[in-house]
């Protein structure tokens, strides 16, 4: 299997994502964490699963991070720091999402709708994955008009670490 090697900066961003996945685990949520990185350098937003806390099955790490990113880029502080950016929709076009597990079908569609061009992820998501595991929503050109531009994806980063976190979670759930 060919696994794309990441540069040092990307490895660091995966580490941030894993920290948030661990954070989810200690809070009784499915351990998936992510970070949205702007212009290859700025941590725009982080997210981890909040499904149980918010009683909303759509509160996956990616959507939580998108909420945080929107909040941030619409804040006065961020605008002051980025005086050249007038349209917040331009920000997402220059972002990469790092996430510990392959985004699900819903999140892939959401990333395309936000026009985020690229995702780097850990293990495959055999149950819900939208970057090829169950469906290939990330690359389906027929969805251009309903969602947005296709999403490039690189999987297989620290796969075992991501899987072990998920295993730890399901062990908690089923003590037997």
């Amino acid at each position, binding site marked *: 299997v060919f696994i794309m090697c990441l540069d040092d900066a990307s490895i660091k961003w995966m580490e941030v994502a894993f920290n948030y996945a661990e954070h989810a685990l200690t809070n009784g949520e499915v351990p998936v964490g992510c970070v949205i990185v702007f212009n290859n350098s700025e941590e725009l937003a982080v997210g981890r699963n909040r499904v149980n806390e918010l009683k909303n099955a759509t509160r996956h790490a990616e959507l939580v991070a*998108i909420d945080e990113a929107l909040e941030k880029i619409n804040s006065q502080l961020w605008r002051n720091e980025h005086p050249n950016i007038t349209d917040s929709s331009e920000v997402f076009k220059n972002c990469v999402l790092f996430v510990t597990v392959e985004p699900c079908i819903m999140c892939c569609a959401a990333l395309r709708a*936000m026009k985020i061009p690229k995702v780097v992820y850990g293990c495959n998501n055999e149950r819900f994955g*939208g970057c090829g595991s169950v469906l290939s929503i990330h690359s389906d050109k027929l969805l251009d008009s309903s969602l947005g531009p296709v999403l490039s994806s690189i999987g297989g980063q620290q796969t075992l670490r991501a899987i072990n976190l998920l295993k730890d979670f399901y062990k908690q759930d089923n003590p037997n």
Partner: protein
Amino acid sequence: WNLQTIYGNEYSPSKAALNLVKSIACSIVNKKFASIILKCLHENYPMTGLQHVKRIRTVKSTEGDCLQVLVFVGTKHLHASELHVLETNMETKKSPLDSIQSLNEIKEYLTSFVPVQVPIVPPLTREQFEMCQLYWPVSFHENKAVSQLMNCSLFTDADYCIMESNMKLAIQTAAAGKLMHPSANVGAVVVDSVSNSVIATAYDLRNIPCEINKGIMVAHPLNHATMVAIDLVAYSQGGGSYNYKDLLKMNDNSNYICTNLTLYVTREPCIMCCMALLHSRIKRVFYGTSFVGGGFGSSYKLNTIKELNHRFEVFQGVLENECSRL
């Protein structure tokens, strides 16, 4: 209006769903040998797993009726290469059984070998059953629930009234959204499937700011009517991500996510919203008009995918004309 079920491809009345395989049949020289032929074939080439396929059929012709028997079913009894050899033998008038020792005792009773196509998947609907019969006779056990779902006959007149009033509410909700912003032309209503009480009404908020977290008002590109409806259900259960202030009414209820809830939405949801409904374990969805790229029939049928952990009923065409005018 023309209500239609969004069903999985395995139910489709198409040739692909029948899964036809190349097979070999032949005529029986005399009816009195039928039982010995069937016994021999059953021992050597059983129809295990193909109980719906009849082994014998009557072929009517001007010279009188004759019995035809299915000798080999492709992929089940023979590899493609073996089948190919037998077919070649048939073309050169050689008996395809010459090389098959196990059928020695019945060889002389069999004649006129012909290639046939056999449906190896049992028919799931009456339409599929009728299509199968064009190729080879099969048996059909009708599943009443499936038939009712397929032809939408499971609904009573009273159900149609409820569907109509709920979709009218969704249309009114979309109209309310349009007053806020002209692009907000989709309305969604979530009701309790049993009591029909309304849990949430939502319109598209992509271009209408609502409060994300503390005090920041943002028009959220992912706040499609369906996503907003799901969050309002979460809010009614003590959760929820956004504060819609006085845009939309936020009720109280005690369901767990969307189990036992039905969604009415004026337009077919996009892939994101369809998968959000699947994660939320929605019980049923009714929508008005189709949407290019939609996930309940137009580009995918997310409610029917076996690999996913929740499957549910989706119907299109409720007040379709009214919905399409939004």
